[in-house]
């Protein structure tokens, strides 16, 4: 009896295990498939992307040509024709007529010059993978392509190298500058008494939630007056401004949580605020600084709106997201460029994310559970 109940308990546990892992797997699958599709497509040839789904790299059954021939000249192409013992109109043959023995007869091409294919369903995988899309989207050269009919066509690639450099030029200073300022500010708010301390902190917390869009208008007006539009300095300043409230708030949360005793004993030993900050607080705050740095880097690297507004459409200073959005807008069906471009724009954030996930999560927890 006891053994029996233990057995059924074990079975119950197994069943719930399967349900939990199954549901989890399903969700993870749904979440991952769109990205995976783009990754796979970025390695497929332009022709393959346009004519078959990316999932056709997996084994599947497809109609394949076994042999082909020219249709007889005297066939009545506007009426009912008989080809290989099958009767049908041009339209029907165009779609393909299946025979009972599992083959299919299909008219390829137009009425006058077309050919006829006999096809069979076979297992196949489309695995012609290439790095061409990446070289095309990076180098920006014009290159020749043959389309299905064999005509050569000159197609424009894109210049992503420049955009990558621009993105780095924007993201690195836009990460470093706000951290430097915010660390000082956070220390001041946490451990120093000065007039206006409270009201300044209110402003920081309020600025945390004001939508970027609203601040853009006055900033843009100032930039026009100062002739800063379209310069990197404009983007750095904008990102610094937008990043500072969160940086100050996160670092304040962390620095104010450091044990009071350490600071007290340092003060008794005669240390000044500045020494305490550089010798004590900064080394202790490395985890918080790292969390915020990752946040800010991802945010500035992925940002589109701020760059769009403060850089405008000058091609030589455009960042990655802008180039990518521009291809979406002007050549939205050039999937060979889009998929490769999208993946190029993701590589760095994904690398940062996977190598520093711990800090990233910690920063997120500090940022909102406390807020």
């Amino acid at each position, binding site marked *: 009896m006891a053994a029996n109940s233990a057995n059924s308990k074990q079975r119950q546990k197994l069943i719930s295990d399967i349900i939990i892992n199954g549901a*989890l*797997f399903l*969700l*993870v699958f749904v*979440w*991952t*498939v*769109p*990205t995976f*599709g*783009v990754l796979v497509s970025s390695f497929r040839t332009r022709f393959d992307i346009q*004519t*078959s*789904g*990316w999932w056709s790299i997996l084994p599947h059954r497809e109609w394949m040509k076994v042999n082909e021939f020219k249709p007889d000249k005297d066939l009545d192409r506007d009426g009912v024709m008989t080809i290989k013992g099958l009767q049908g109109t041009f339209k029907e043959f165009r779609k393909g007529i299946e025979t009972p023995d599992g083959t299919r007869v299909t008219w390829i091409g137009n009425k006058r010059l077309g050919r006829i294919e006999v096809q069979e369903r076979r297992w196949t995988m489309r695995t012609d993978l290439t790095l061409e899309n990446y070289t095309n989207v990076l180098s920006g050269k014009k290159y020749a392509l043959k389309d299905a009919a064999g005509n050569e066509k000159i197609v424009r690639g894109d210049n992503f190298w420049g955009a990558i450099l621009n993105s780095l030029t924007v993201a690195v200073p836009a990460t470093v500058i706000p951290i430097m300022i915010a660390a000082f500010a956070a220390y001041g*708010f*946490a*451990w*120093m*008494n000065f007039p206006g301390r409270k009201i300044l*902190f209110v402003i920081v917390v*309020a600025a945390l*939630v*004001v*939508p*970027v*869009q*609203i601040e*853009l*208008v006055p900033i843009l007006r100032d930039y026009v007056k100062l002739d800063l539009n379209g310069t990197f300095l404009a983007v750095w300043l904008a990102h610094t401004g937008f990043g500072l409230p969160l940086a100050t708030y996160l670092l304040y949360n962390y620095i104010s949580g450091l044990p009071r005793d350490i600071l007290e004993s340092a*003060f008794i030993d005669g240390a000044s605020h500045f020494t305490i900050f550089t010798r004590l607080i900064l080394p202790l705050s490395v985890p918080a600084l790292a969390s915020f740095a990752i946040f800010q880097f*991802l945010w500035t690297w*992925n940002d*589109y*709106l701020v760059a769009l507004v403060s850089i405008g459409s000058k091609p030589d200073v455009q960042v*990655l*997201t802008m180039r*990518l*959005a521009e291809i*979406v*807008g002007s050549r939205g*069906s050039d*999937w060979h460029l889009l*998929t490769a*471009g*999208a993946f190029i*724009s*993701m590589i760095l*954030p*994904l690398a*940062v*994310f*996977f190598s520093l*996930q711990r800090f990233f*999560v910690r920063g*997120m*927890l500090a940022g*909102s*559970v406390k*807020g």
Partner: protein
Amino acid sequence: MQEAVRNNVLWIVFGATLSVVFGLLIAVLADRSRFENIAKSLIFLPMAISMVGAGVIWNFVYEIKDAASPQIGLLNALWVAVGGQPQAWTAQLQPWNNLFLIVILIWLQTGYAMVLFSAAIKGIPGELLEAARVDGATEVQTFFKIMIPYIMGTIVTVSTTIIIFTLKIFDVVQVMTGGQFGTHVIATQFYRQYFTNRNFGYGSAIAIVLLIAVIPVMVYNLKQFGERRAF
């Protein structure tokens, strides 16, 4: 503008709610699975992708080809496989085409909700759950009567954050449809109005509404701030 406000409401109602629901569901499931870390990483991964990149990814899922040729977009391929006609998902059936854009927000934000919920669930004392089970509570009862009330604070914070984020949504719409087909949201309208009509009156109004909405958070923080003694 009415359209933009209506769409933003749709974004909040569906986007924020479903992000929270999925985030909670995945956090609970992952907590009891052996594959917790890898599952959480993969769900969380979209957070590192730019919204423009996410727009490309989902545009590719929604891609439509004419009915005669094979579909290269995943959704249309599935739809045709079950016997439907290829659809332009983000252009038809207004205003419900917005839902296909909102999916992207859910895809991006669920990871965020999940991480916070996961941390909160791990903070629930084991004895509490054990006691409930000893008293004969089912899993569902434990979930709704113990877990949910215990992490209510986190649920509120996460919802607030996602709602604020959703109010500001811009990139996704701009890249996917540019606001066509009745998909404008406040931010895209704002952007368009600024560059074409130079009319920023209502932008300021939104800022004020947001500031009012955030007053409780501010008060809470200030209370804590006021209690601190500095040197």
